């Protein structure tokens, strides 16, 4: 049975060399020429595919070339050997001359195959380097060196502030808090008025504000999101608010006009100062280690009352007193307080029914403290020598 042309086309060379010319339906000189053309094309394609695939080392190049050579030229079962066997030897007399001629041409091309592969492509990539590594081949030659570095793809990194932020977020997520977000360009109402910081009061000077216009500022803290969240969700409410804030501060080793804050807020029907103390103590210990102590001291923020500052025993000297804690043994880590009833009221929550606590901390400072970074400018210089350490 003669196979159709399509069937013949679909056969691979490997399949074809196992059949005779008659089985392949080749009956004339033109057929022979076409068949051998196909074989040469296949050979060419394999070579070029090898070239394009490339090799990462001289050893691999040699190995690839060898396998290509063996495939075509091996005395036992090489493609050419098969062609000799199936096509030439069994060809009918009238076709023998043309088969013989084509076969010779093919042989010459094949002889050049090795050279060709070497010179024209494979191996041009790293012509000079001695490199690893084919186990079987190189072991004997003694070139295999397992102590060479591995093949590595350099990793990137998350910014230390992001890492710090996520670590803090995770502690509160574990406590069941939710993450809330708000705009950086904020109205004076949300940034100040609703937080009980009237324009007329000197407390507003505690925030060096960058103004867009008389009604709009770059938020000076993440606290405006407290009001926005109260309006949006009502009580009970357990959230933390990470984000960028801005102050009119000239840059130096501990100030940048842009910085990162995390605000926390818990509002419920039975929240007391005890919850504030306990939860923030829990948080500080999870972040800075179980060994630290916390200290709560009174302070003033217009939007909380009673207000406080939280200090932790110095993580560098253990409370003995050192340069970092200015010999005090304590490091201030955040401001906090019970949400001012006026602020609850402004957020649409009845202060007689609900109470809450809140805190605010500077993420950049935390990252600096925990990762021992001495200049805040480093955080925002984008120097790869700095970033790759995290």
């Amino acid at each position, binding site marked *: 049975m003669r196979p159709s042309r399509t069937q013949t086309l679909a056969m691979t060379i490997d399949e074809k060399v196992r059949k005779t010319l008659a089985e392949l339906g080749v009956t004339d000189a033109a057929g022979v020429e076409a068949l051998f053309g196909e074989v040469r094309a296949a050979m060419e*394609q394999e070579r070029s595919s090898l070239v394009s695939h490339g090799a990462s080392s001289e050893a691999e190049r040699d190995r690839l070339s060898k396998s290509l050579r063996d495939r075509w030229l091996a005395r036992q079962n090489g493609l050419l050997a098969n062609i000799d066997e199936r096509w030439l030897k069994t060809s009918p007399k009238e076709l023998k001359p043309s088969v013989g001629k084509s076969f010779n041409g093919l042989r010459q091309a094949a002889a050049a195959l090795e050279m060709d592969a070497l010179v024209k492509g494979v191996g041009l990539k790293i012509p000079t380097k001695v490199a690893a590594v084919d186990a079987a081949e190189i072991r004997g030659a003694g070139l295999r060196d397992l102590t060479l570095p591995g093949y590595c*793809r350099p990793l990137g990194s998350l910014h230390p502030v*992001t890492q710090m932020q996520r670590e803090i977020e995770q502690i509160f997520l574990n406590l069941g808090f939710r993450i809330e977000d708000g705009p950086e360009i904020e109205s004076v109402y949300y940034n100040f008025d609703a937080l009980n910081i009237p324009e007329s009061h*000197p407390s507003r000077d505690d925030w060096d504000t960058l103004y867009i216009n008389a009604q709009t500022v770059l938020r000076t803290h993440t606290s405006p999101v407290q009001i926005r969240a109260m309006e949006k969700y009502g009580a009970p409410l357990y959230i933390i608010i990470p984000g960028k804030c801005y102050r009119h501060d000239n840059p130096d080793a501990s100030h940048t006009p842009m910085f990162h804050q995390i605000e926390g807020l818990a509002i419920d029907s039975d929240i007391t100062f*005890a919850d504030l103390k306990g*939860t923030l103590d829990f948080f500080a210990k999870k972040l800075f280690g179980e060994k630290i102590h916390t200290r709560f001291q009174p302070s003033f923020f217009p939007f909380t009352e009673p207000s406080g500052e939280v200090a932790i025993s110095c993580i560098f000297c253990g409370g003995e007193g050192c340069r970092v804690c200015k010999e005090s043994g304590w490091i201030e880590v955040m401001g906090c307080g019970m949400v001012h009833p006026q602020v609850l009221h402004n957020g649409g929550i009845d202060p007689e029914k609900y109470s809450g606590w809140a805190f605010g901390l500077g993420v950049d400072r935390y990252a600096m403290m925990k990762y021992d970074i001495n200049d805040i400018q480093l955080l925002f210089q*984008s*120097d*790869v020598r700095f970033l790759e350490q995290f």
Partner: protein
Amino acid sequence: MKISVNWLKEFVDVTSDPRQLKSDLTMIGLNTESCAPVGDDWVLDVEVTTNRPDCLSHYGVARELATLYRQPLQRVEVFLKESGEPTSAAATVEIADPDLCARYCGRIVQKVQVGPSPDWLVKRLEAIGQRSINNVADATNYVLMELGHPLHAFDLFRLRQHKIIVRRANPGEPLRTLDGVDRTLTRDSLVIADGERPVALAGVMGGEESEISSRTGSVLLESAWFEPVSVRRTAKSQGMHTEASHRFERGADLEMAPLALDRAADLIQKVAGGEILRKMIDVYPRPESRKDLLLRRSEIARILGTEVAWEEVERILCGLGFQTERQGTEGWRVSPPSFRLDVSREIDLIEEVARHVGYDRLPARVRPAPPRVERDITREKIMAVSSLLVGLGYHEIIAPAMVDPAENQRFADCAPVMLANPLSQDASAMRSSAVPSMLRAIRWNLDRDLRDVKFCEFGKTYSLTTEGTPEERRVLTLGATGHRRPASVHDSEKVVDFFDLKGDLGTMFAPFDLPKLDFEPSSCPYYEEGCCGRLTSQGIALAVFGQPRQDLAREYKLRQAVWVAEIDLEHLLNFSLRPRQFRPFSKFPAVERDFSLVVPDGVPYARLAAAVAGLDLEEIRRHRPVDRFRGGAIAAQHHGLLLRVTFQSQTHTLTSEEVGGLSQRLLAVLEPLGVRLRG
């Protein structure tokens, strides 16, 4: 505020050592930064919060300590030797704008000898960082530091008609203040005027002309109460901040005015001699009575989480100057003292109780939120993208959002959000594009010979909408330059190019359920023509990327090829994460075939790929280009393309015939594009 320990001891019996004192003050809310020895004295640096003007004095701090240490607080009593005519016969005081000045007390000390202060006075003032001026000025300054009430001394004979009028300034009125600055006043400013012109900025600073000098014979002492908001406005508009304005704008003590006046007059007499005229002038148009507050025991417990004993609450509040009166079992009626303007609600009283019970003595409990189930999908998406980027070798940066508007304008055509009071011109606009910050970040590293850089930035851009309201958009920016990987024995160095970024974007979008990710060559004003592409899904632009134009690259001193991508996070985050769903893979072997194709140069790969995809043949599992070359047997204006195709069926092993048939169909669909098998 600097506080002398010796001075404190005049009012309260302080026995603890200065270090303990520092810590004790801090623990009742008077954060004390330092304590330093000065001679035989110790000086504490106490940070007084804006709500506590009463503690801007030694007496105020002493009151806190007396309450803390359960010690009596020494009363301030003055016994004046008055003589001569009544003060009101020698000068008159009129408050023309009583809304801004609630009280004005005045005394006259005649025949003073202005000169240097005695040593003890100089020492005391210098210990707390105050410069000695002359005995009269020092006396008023001393009373300010002692009792916290600002006073002013006028040279009586420089006051025309010996008259004091407290009024709003007339627009444009001039006044040279003590600091030698000529000021032009506005209607907002409250002034002290004599019979003809302003002689002092009320509550801020005196005028130079009526200043006490060595020739001064009679002094008119002012002890008044000015409205805080007005003082704050006046000082701000004149760019001034003085010891007086600092206290008045926080709220001075109305009842302290006469006492501070007597104290100062007495002191002047002691250090500068002179006679104090009889009976002070006290203009007090509407004595204010403050509202009593109700303090409930239940509310103390509700806020502090613990009950505080009746006696303890009373001890604390009375010690701090409040008057309490029990109301049955409910709590107290409390009258706040005149010096505690910050106390106006029940919660303010609770804070006083908490402060003096001691925050460290209040109970603590850990309070988790009630359980909740909703997931934070946006956070999950950001986490997925950022971990992929880290895996792909990108370092996250955080870039400044405030930029130079001129630079910004070259990368965005929308109106920027401008700052009204920027730190500097080159940080006066909020960025509308994150590209310049990325270029600056890369430049910083190239300038330092750090040449292999891959950065990503999760940030925002800011713009004004057509209505003029500010809008913020989340953007992700990638920047890459240099080598893909460091050189090693295993591999040669390769330079990062367009396709690195394209590939990374593809990887980054992989977690998202994008119905389709389309690429098209694009153009953009700041990217090199022909080196810019766009990724979209269903017509929604997700990313634009390319190589910055050569002139820009030169400007940013980018000495090597830099590639930048901008990803619209607002759009990307709207897509949900790809749902995980298993689809059974074929159990039958796959056949891989390479097609060596000749492709006309005008036909981009995307058209080939689209044509193959258009076949929609399930058996063509995969196809990808593995080599692309020119020359040799390839005709001009054509190139060779080696296409590797994987054939596989879900239902059976493909026969040679089937693969052949599929190959034919594949070639057939490419034919109209002018693509043919290499001959």
